[in-house]
């Protein structure tokens, strides 16, 4: 069962080990700087980017604990403690959007994680190279479209005069304004997500499939395994590291469910199922100008996301021995 794996996690690199060992101290740093100062100088601008546009906003989250006035200090005016956190914990809308986030995240994971594996396995069984390449090229295409275009296409297909409603009417039903109906939003969201991501999602699996040793199939055949059992006992274990890695990454984005797409597709009528944490904080921040409250919600979401990815990674390392770091 256990076999060598050449495909490893796409996100390498351990998180920052603390820089210099205290003993070696200044002296070696001085030597390193003297020898490599040109290399270090190349890192200055990128580091400035990370500090200003990535780490400063992290610090900017202190406004979740402080009173913030637009146009005032970007770190807020004075401390208010956990006021904004208490506010959203007692806000019924917050719990509604929290539930929606979990449901949409879970549905996305449920479909968008396994379907690329299925499609990759099916593609792997195609014996004619040109057909395989054609199907691949076509299925990758939606990945390259702007989310605005995808949303626009969804709206056209689902409009009252669109194709879907023509099918509905042809089968004797009445036209449904799908995008106005909360009970349809989850279906629409998940299927458009499947349409856009599944093809591109096969790439890593197809790469992993090519690394599986043919001798293993040979051995399985000699042992009397049919195609189905070969898939089950050779192919799937062969791509397991890739599956685990992508599962961890998917879990990492669980809370951030397609913010931009929802923002484009939802409307007040569909808020009951479509409104998620990120869209809610967007409205709190920009429609009601309550930046501190919105930042508190955002911080809450980001922390949950971090906890999710860390625990998924830990569990994966303990149970299957594959992890991001």
């Amino acid at each position: 069962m256990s076999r060598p794996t050449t495909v490893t996690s796409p996100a390498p690199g351990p998180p920052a080990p603390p820089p210099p060992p205290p003993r070696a101290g200044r002296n070696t740093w001085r030597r390193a700087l003297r020898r490599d100062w040109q290399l270090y100088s190349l890192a200055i601008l990128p580091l400035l980017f990370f500090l200003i546009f990535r780490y400063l906003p992290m610090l900017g989250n202190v406004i979740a604990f402080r009173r913030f006035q637009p146009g005032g200090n970007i770190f807020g005016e004075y401390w208010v403690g956990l006021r904004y956190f208490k506010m959203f914990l007692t806000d019924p809308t917050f719990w509604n959007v929290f539930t929606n986030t979990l449901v949409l995240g879970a549905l996305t994971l449920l479909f968008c994680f396994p379907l690329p594996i299925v499609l990759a396995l099916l593609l792997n069984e195609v014996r004619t190279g040109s057909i395989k390449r054609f199907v691949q090229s076509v299925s990758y295409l939606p990945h390259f479209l702007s989310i605005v275009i995808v949303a626009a296409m969804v709206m056209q297909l689902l409009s009252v005069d669109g194709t879907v409603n023509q099918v509905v009417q042809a089968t004797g039903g009445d036209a449904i304004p799908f995008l106005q109906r909360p009970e349809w939003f989850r279906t629409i969201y998940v299927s458009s997500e499947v349409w856009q991501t599944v093809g591109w999602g096969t790439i890593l699996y197809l790469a992993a499939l090519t690394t599986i040793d043919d001798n293993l199939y040979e051995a399985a055949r000699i042992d009397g395994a049919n195609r189905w059992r070969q898939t089950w006992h050779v192919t799937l274990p062969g791509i397991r590291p890739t599956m685990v890695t992508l599962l961890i990454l998917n879990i990492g984005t669980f809370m951030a469910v397609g913010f931009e797409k929802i923002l484009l597709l939802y409307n007040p009528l569909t808020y009951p199922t479509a409104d998620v944490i990120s869209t809610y904080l967007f409205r709190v921040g920009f429609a009601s100008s309550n930046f501190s409250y919105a930042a508190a919600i955002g911080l809450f979401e980001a922390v949950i996301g971090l906890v999710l990815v860390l625990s998924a990674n830990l569990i994966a390392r303990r149970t299957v021995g594959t992890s991001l770091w």
Partner: protein
Amino acid sequence: MVTTEAAARRTDTPPRPRRRRGIQQTRGYRAFQVANGIVLTLVVVVTLYPFVNIVARSMSNEAYIIAGQVNLVPRGFTLDTYQLVMSDSLFWTNYRNTVFYTVTATLISITLTTCYAYVLSKKHLKGRGALVGIAVFTMFFTGGLIPNYVLVTSLGLKNSVWAIALPNAISVFNLLVMKAFFESLPTDLEEAAAVDGLNTYGILLRIVLPLSKAIVATMVLFYAVAFWNSWFAAFLYLDQQELWPVTVYLRNLIAGATGAENVGSITEANEVQAEATLKAVTIVLTTLPILLVYPFVQRYFVRGIMLGAVKG
């Protein structure tokens, strides 16, 4: 798509007799191949249908669209709406903006990414682990929408190209792919160049980059497509319609936002060709550049992703 694929897996087991009878599993496998062919055909059809449909709508007469009669082929063929959209000066201004933003942002991104990836690829470098960690940590934890907005606003970047280019200058994924590539380059050339007296900048520019044309091209494409497609930063930070990229133009059109006054005037100008075709035409015209270059650049994307996955 979902159900058909699941069904196809199941058809694996019950074998369907077909032509010569071989061993049981061979027949089963043949049946599977047929089912597989059907499923993959469905995948292709489902993927392509929205494109065909939108083109058909864009060339149809509005009356047929409202009547719900346009699917695969245009009905009441007309190109009037194309003329209308293309005569809207805002559309072209926004298109030019998209090109300008994409070029500027991609140049900044590729420069910063190359520099940092090169530094990170030097295994002997003191503090390398920390430099990698600084980047990787931001993949899993970010400041979030509100603090970013406050920052960009207070830096005075609103209503300028910098609001689009700078906050997303480095994609950590691209950075790691490039780092993996640089690490795979043989070191002897660089060492020889160093012995010949070339400094680090010279080595990077004259030795490493010429060897890395393929990966640089791939990264340029990754960034360019991302910036070409992006809309949210522009939506958030650009208040004036002359500054929008074309994605925001399209967004406002489909959202029926009040901002798109020009579009309103178009519809008044021609009562026959109204909303539905307008949207379809704008979608087609924004998608077209991507569709045109896609066949030629697709393999670079695949290669880039593979490199990141296998090396990472």
